[in-house]
C-alpha cells in the first residue's frame, strides 16, 4: 500500500509541476500576445495559437501521469 501512495505522489508531481511550468510559460506569452493584439486586432488567431503552445507541456505531464499510474499499478 505504501507503494501505491508513492505512485500517486509521482503521478501528481508529474502533472502538477508540468502544469506550473505551462502556466509560467503562458503568462509571458499571454502578456505579449495581448500587447500585440492591442496594436493589431487581426492577430487574434496567431495570438491564440501562441498562447496555447505551452499546453503541450501539461499534456505530456498528463500522459506521463497516466502512464505512471497504468504501468506501476
Amino acid at each position, binding site marked *: 500500500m505504501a507503494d501505491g501512495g508513492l505512485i500517486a505522489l509521482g503521478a501528481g508531481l508529474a502533472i502538477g509541476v508540468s502544469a506550473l511550468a505551462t502556466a509560467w510559460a503562458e503568462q509571458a506569452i499571454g502578456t505579449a500576445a495581448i500587447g500585440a493584439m492591442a496594436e493589431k486586432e487581426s492577430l487574434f488567431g496567431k495570438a491564440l495559437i501562441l498562447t496555447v503552445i505551452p499546453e503541450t507541456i501539461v*499534456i505530456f505531464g498528463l500522459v506521463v501521469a497516466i502512464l505512471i499510474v497504468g504501468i506501476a499499478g
Partner: protein
Amino acid sequence: MSKPEIMVKCKIVAPKSTLSAVINTLYDLGLYHLTPHLKGTYNLDLGTPLAQAEELATLLVKVRQILARFPKTIAQNYLLNKFPAVSLTKKSWPELQRKVEKIFQEIKETEQKLALLREERLILHNQLISLSFLRKMKINAAALSQSQILCGVFGQIKRQEGLSAALSKHLPASSFFQEKDYIFVVAKKTQETELKNVLSSFGFTPFSWSLETNNLLSELKKKKELAAKKKEQKLILLKRLQGLSEEVAELQAWELEIQEEIRKQELPLSFAVTGSTFLAEGWLPQKQSAQVVQALEKITKNKIHVQLENPGKKDHPPVKLNNKKLVSPFEFLLKLYDLPSYKEIDPTSLLFFTFPIFFGFMLGDVGYGLVLAILFFILRKKMPAAKQMLDVLLFAAIVSIAFGFVFGEFFGFEYVGNETGEKLCNLGICLEKVTHFAGGHGAEGGQAVTIWEFPHLLHRASTKTNLFGYDILTVLIIGAIVGFIHLNLGLFLGFLNEAASHGWKHAVMAKLSWMIMEAGIIFAVLGGMGIFLPLVKWMGIIIAVIGVVMLVKGEGVQGAVEIPGLFSNMLSYMRLGAVGLASVGLAVVVNEKLALPFFEKGGIFIFFGIIIMILGHGINLLLGVIGPFLHGVRLHYVECFSKFFHGGGVEYAPFSRKKELTKE
C-alpha cells in the same frame, strides 16, 4: 486539395475622358482587385480624384452632422422596414443637396430657438422659486427693493454649517431667512459687497428677485402662466425636430450611397496618369477576365487597351480561396491563422476532414454532442455574422455524437444501473448486461454488481493496449497513430508545395527525406523487436541514415536539428486522448462523486442533485468546447501546418459595392 483561384494580371490603359465610365464599369462588375500605383513607378505620377469628390465629401460631412443628432435606431428601423432604392445620379444629386441643406438649416434654426428657450425657462424657474420663497416668508419685497438703506439678497447655498455664525460675526446688523438651501439675507446697503463676499464662501448662487408690486400672488400666477407657455413652445419645437426623423432616416440610406460614390471618385488616386491617359494595374480571376475586358471595350467604344498577363515569378497575386460550399466554412479556421500564398495548396479541405474528427475524438459524448449541436444550430440562426464559425462547430458537434457512440458515453455515463437497464430492456432498448465483482478480489470475496453498459467499441478511461510489455491507454496510442498519419499528410502536402515552387529535386530532398527516415526507423524498430529477421534492423538503420543525409542536403543543418521535433510533434497528438480523458474524468466526478450521493438520499436532495448535475455538466460542456477547439486548431497550425504551410497571402478584395450594402 484545391489551390487558390487562378488570377491574371490586368493592365488598363485609356484616355482620361473615359475615367468615370471605366470606374463605374469596374465597380459594377466587382471583380477587379486593384494594385495601387506607387508614385514614380514607370516615371508616372498619381492620378487626382474626379471633379465631384470634394463636393461630395462636403455633403457627406453635412449628412453625418445631421445623422449624429438623431438616435441611431430611428434610421435603422427605417432601413429595415422600407429601404427606398436611392441612387446618386446627375438628376438626383442637386435635389439631394437642396434637401440636405434644407434639413440642416431647419435643424440649426430649431436648435438655436431651443437654446434660447432653455435660458428663458431657467430664469423663469429661478424667479418662481424666489417669489414663492418671499411669499412664504412674508417679506415685504416691494418695500425692500425701493429702500435706500437696506438691501436684500436671495439665492441658493451649497454649505450651511457655520453660516449664521459667519453672518453674525461679519455683519452683526443683518438678519436672514432660510428654508432648505435657499436663503434670503437682509443687510445694510453699505455692506452689500461684504455680504456677498461672506455668502460666496458658502457656495452661493444669487437669484434675481426684485419686485415693484407687493401683490406676490398675482405675480406668481403671471410667471406660472408664462412658464407653461414656454414649455408648450419647447414641446412644439421638439415635435418639429421629431417630424424630421423620417427625412433623416432616408439620409441614412443616402449616406451609404454618397460614401460609395466618393470611393469611386477617389479611385484615380490609385492610378498612374500621363497628360491625357491613365494606367491601372490589378488582378482578375482568369475565369471572368474575358467578361471584364468585353464590358470595358463596350463602354469605352474600344478606346481602351486592356492587357492580360499570367503572374510572373516576382508577382504576388491576391488569393481567392476556391472551395466547395460544404467545405468553405472551414476557411474561417484558415483565415484565423493566415491565408496561403498564391502558389500554395489551400489546406481548407484538410481542415474539413481532420478538424471535426479531432474535435469529436476529444469531446466524444453522445449527450454533449447533442446539446452542442442543438445550441450551435440555434445560434447559427440568431447570429448570422458568426455563421462560418458556428457551421464549423456544428460539424464538429455532430462528429462528437458519432464518437460518443464509439466510446459508449452519454453525459459521462458509460453504463446504467441494474434497475434502469431492465426497465429500458422492457421498453425494447436492451443495453449490454455486465456483471462484475466489487469490493473484493476476484469472484470470491466481492459482491456481484450488475450494470448495463452502453454499446461501445472501447472505453476511453479503461481500455488498454499492451505495447512493449506495458499496458497503455488505447486512446493515447490512437492519438499518436493519428499524429503519425496527420504529420505525414502534412509532409506530403509540403512535398507538393515544394515541387510546385522549387522543383521535384528539392521536394524529394526536403520533404520526402522525412518519410524515408521514418520508414527506416520503423523497420529498425520492428527488426529489433524480432518481428522481422535481424537483417531488417540493419537495413532500416541504413535507410534512416540515408533519409537524414538527404534531409541535411535539402534543408541544411536546420533540418537535422528538427528531427527530434518530429517525434515530439507526434507525441503531441496524444492530447487527442488526454484532453478527452480530462473531460470524461470531470463528467464522472460530477455524476458519481457529486450528484449520486444526493440522489441516494432521496426526497428534497434529488432536487439539489439535479442542480449539481446541470452546473457540473454546464462547466464541463464549456470546457468541452474551448479545449477541443483550441487543441484541434493548434494541432493543425503548429504541428501539421509547419510541415508545408508558408502563408502570407493577400486577400482578394475586388473594387465593388461594400458587402453590408449588397446584403439588402
